């Protein structure tokens, strides 16, 4: 019945569908309890009417927003794909800024603190993260090769390591390393403890990524290299890994971005990185939210930097796939 209707009157069915979607959005916005106060700000004349008709005002507000969304959508369809992407980024970013603006932030406070946030916090975060990334990569490579080893002892060590460090919360690992190592006579300061915990934890996750990447390369590649007389190490580093990198890089980029943000956990042992400063700098003047949002934006900018580096590396290792 409905199918027949759609087949016979496709244009009418399409319009009905669009109306249905619009109705759903209006209902959704209304049900979420959207405010109508913004209408009053734009049209001061409507303020009194809105006060008298609260429910109806909400409905009008939902309908207008839905209408704006629909017009926006229709206009975006006129653009090319690249322009659409750029326009959507700008729009969503503007909305995010609007959201932050609604907190009534003290820009002057942020401007006063941001220099120190960057010179102390960003530098420390980047220092901890980049060293941890380097060590984690080495651990992951060694771990992956160990996991593919025929030697039971080596395999056993690798599986115990990945199981343990993937199984414990990172926060616990930081505490255990910082507070536990002194118990066995090795006093470790906060930054090395943080680096050690991050490297070991992410090394364990990345071991699995590297192993999967290496295993994704067909056995024929190893045989081809072996038949040419290349040794096992040459085969791994000249033939297998360069190909495996295509599989390894995207999830590793993910891990690096996650690690950058998880480095905030190191703040619990008193390292002056971004998160620690965000919590402490705002305290004196009760401007917590300013510092938290600033810190969030800084993390985001750093993540975008990592995304960019990842795409460059991906392009490098994927170049042989070009036709």
């Amino acid at each position: 019945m409905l199918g027949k209707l759609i087949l016979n009157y496709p244009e009418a069915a399409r319009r009905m569908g669009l109306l249905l979607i619009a109705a759903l959005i209006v209902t959704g916005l209304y049900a979420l309890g959207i405010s109508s106060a913004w209408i009053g700000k734009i049209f001061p004349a409507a303020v009194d009417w809105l006060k008298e008709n609260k429910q109806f005002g909400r409905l009008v507000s939902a309908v207008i927003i839905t209408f704006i969304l629909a017009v926006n959508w229709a206009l975006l369809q006129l653009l090319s794909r690249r322009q659409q992407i750029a326009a959507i980024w700008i729009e969503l970013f503007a909305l995010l800024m609007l959201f932050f603006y609604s907190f009534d932030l003290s820009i002057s406070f942020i401007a006063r603190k941001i220099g120190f946030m960057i010179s102390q916090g960003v530098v420390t975060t980047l220092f901890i993260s980049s060293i941890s990334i380097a060590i984690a990569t080495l651990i992951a490579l060694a771990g992956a090769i160990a996991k593919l080893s025929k030697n039971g002892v080596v395999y056993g060590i690798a599986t115990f390591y990945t199981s343990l460090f993937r199984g414990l919360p990172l926060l616990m690992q930081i505490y255990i390393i910082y507070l536990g190592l002194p118990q066995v006579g090795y006093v470790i300061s906060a930054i090395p403890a943080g680096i050690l915990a991050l490297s070991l934890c992410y090394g364990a996750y990345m071991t699995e990524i590297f192993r999967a990447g290496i295993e994704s390369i067909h056995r024929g590649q190893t045989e081809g290299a072996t038949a040419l007389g290349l040794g096992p190490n040459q085969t791994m580093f000249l033939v297998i890994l360069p190909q495996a990198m295509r599989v390894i890089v995207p999830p590793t980029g993910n891990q690096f971005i996650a690690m950058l943000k998880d480095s905030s956990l190191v703040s619990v042992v008193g390292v002056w990185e971004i998160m620690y400063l965000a919590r402490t700098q705002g305290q004196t003047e009760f401007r917590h939210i300013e510092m938290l949002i600033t810190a969030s934006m800084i993390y985001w900018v750093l993540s975008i930097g990592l995304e960019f580096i990842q795409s460059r590396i991906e392009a490098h290792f994927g170049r042989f796939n070009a036709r």
Partner: protein
Amino acid sequence: MPAPVETDSEISLVGVHKWYGVYHALDDINLEIGRKERIVICGPSGSGKSTLIRCINRLETHQEGRIIVGGVELTDDEKNIDVVRREVGMVFQHFNLFPHLTILENCILAPVWVRKMPKAKATEIAMHFLERVRIPEQAGKYPGQLSGGQQQRVAIARALCMNPKVMLFDEPTSALDPEMVKEVLDTMVSLAQEGMTMICVTHEMGFARQVADRVIFMDQGKLIEQASPKEFFDNPQNERSRLFLSQILH
């Protein structure tokens, strides 16, 4: 250098056995292959022909018997294995070119890293062999950009760049589209005519007739029959050889 073993043959296999679990893949193989001899090995699938040639460069490990290649016995000794692999080139059914390297880089990889040859010299040699397989103009491309026949010719050139004494071919034309089989076989024929010691696992009976000194028939891991191509094709002695030939020659 490992101590040379006295033998007149380039390759000799004495009482070689291999098992995969309980499966008897090679069953008492005895075979002498002389210098510059061209051998074609045929037989039904699962008869152990690929396993046999893969034992010769130790891609597979035999469990009993002796394999001696160029006077060097294949044992667990890594040094011996390295020596043998340097002297034995291999061409695979699926080419096994390295897709992340260009054709030229594929060819110079082993000479540079295994033979420690200067890059310029390796490039010169590689271009020489790429010309011989008639695709020097593809040197800068990646394997994925070439046809199957071209890729297999590159694989042959890549093996030749190591200047091997023996070439092993493991069904080199089986994965190719029919129209590309000839260009690969032509390359192999010209190689045979230049006096390369060759062991080819193949079902290309025309190639066997044209260049083989000896045809070896295997079945169920056993070496059933060996004869000159003329004798083997015109008057096979063994019942199983006759059955096999009737199936593939229609």
